[in-house]
C-alpha cells in the first residue's frame, strides 16, 4: 500500500490561542472545574494554619480566630464553598462515567451511580457536622 501524504510545507498549521478556554462555554466550565482545586487547596492551607495556631494557647488562638468573622474572610470561604461544591458535583459525574458497576448482568445507569454518590456525600457531611456539634 502506498502511503500518500500531502506536502507538509504547503499545509497551514493552526495555532491554539492561550485564551481557548474563554471561547466556548464547556471549555470555560472545564477550566472552572480545574481551578476549584486552587480554592480547595487555599482553604486547606488556611485550615492548617488554624490547626497550628490551636496549639499556641487559648487566648492567642481566640485572637487569631477572631479575624475569620470579617467580611473578607467570610466572602473567601463562601467562594471556596461554591468551588468545592462544583468539584463535588463534577467529580461525582466523572466517577459515574469511570465506574462501570454491574448488578448481575445489568450495568447500573450513570444517574443511579451519581445518586448513590450524592446520598453518601450527604450522609458523610451530616456525620461530620454531628460530630462537631456534640463535641
Amino acid at each position, binding site marked *: 500500500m502506498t502511503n500518500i501524504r500531502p506536502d507538509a510545507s504547503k499545509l497551514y498549521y493552526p495555532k491554539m490561542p492561550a485564551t481557548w478556554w474563554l471561547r466556548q462555554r464547556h471549555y470555560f466550565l472545564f477550566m472552572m472545574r480545574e481551578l476549584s482545586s486552587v480554592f480547595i487547596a487555599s482553604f486547606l492551607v488556611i485550615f492548617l494554619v488554624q*490547626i497550628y495556631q490551636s496549639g499556641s494557647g487559648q487566648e492567642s488562638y481566640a485572637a487569631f480566630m477572631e479575624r475569620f468573622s470579617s467580611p473578607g474572610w467570610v466572602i473567601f470561604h463562601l467562594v*471556596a464553598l461554591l468551588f468545592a461544591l462544583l468539584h463535588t458535583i463534577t467529580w461525582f459525574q466523572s466517577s459515574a462515567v469511570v465506574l462501570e458497576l454491574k448488578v448481575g448482568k445489568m450495568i447500573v445507569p450513570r444517574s443511579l451511580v451519581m445518586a448513590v454518590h450524592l446520598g453518601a456525600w450527604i450522609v458523610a457531611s451530616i456525620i461530620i457536622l454531628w460530630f462537631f456539634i456534640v463535641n
Partner: protein
Amino acid sequence: MSERTTNEPFWWGLFSAGGVVASFLIPIHIIITGLAVPMGWLTDSSRLYDLWWVKCYLFVLITLPLYHWAHRFYFTLKDMGLKVVEKPLAFLCYGSAVLGTFVTAWILLGL
C-alpha cells in the same frame, strides 16, 4: 509519538484519591471551620485535634487534596500556554504537595 513509559500513574493515583477525599469531605469542613465557627453558630472544636485518630483523619483530609491540586494546577498552567516550562512547573506543583505533606505531619505531630 513516544512509547516511553512514565511514572504518571503514581501522581494520577494520588490525584484521584485526593479528588475523592475533596469531593466528599471538603464542603462540610469549609462550612464548619470557615463559616459556622467564625459566625458563632458552632463552638470551636479545636481541642479535638489532640486525639490521635482525629490527627490521622486530618492528615488524610489535608494532604491528599494537595496532590489533587498539584496535578490539576500543573495541567491547567500547561493548558494556558506555559508548556515551555513544563518541567520546572511539574517540580514546583508536585514539590509543593510533597512539602505540604511534611509540613502537615510536622504540625499534627507537634500538637
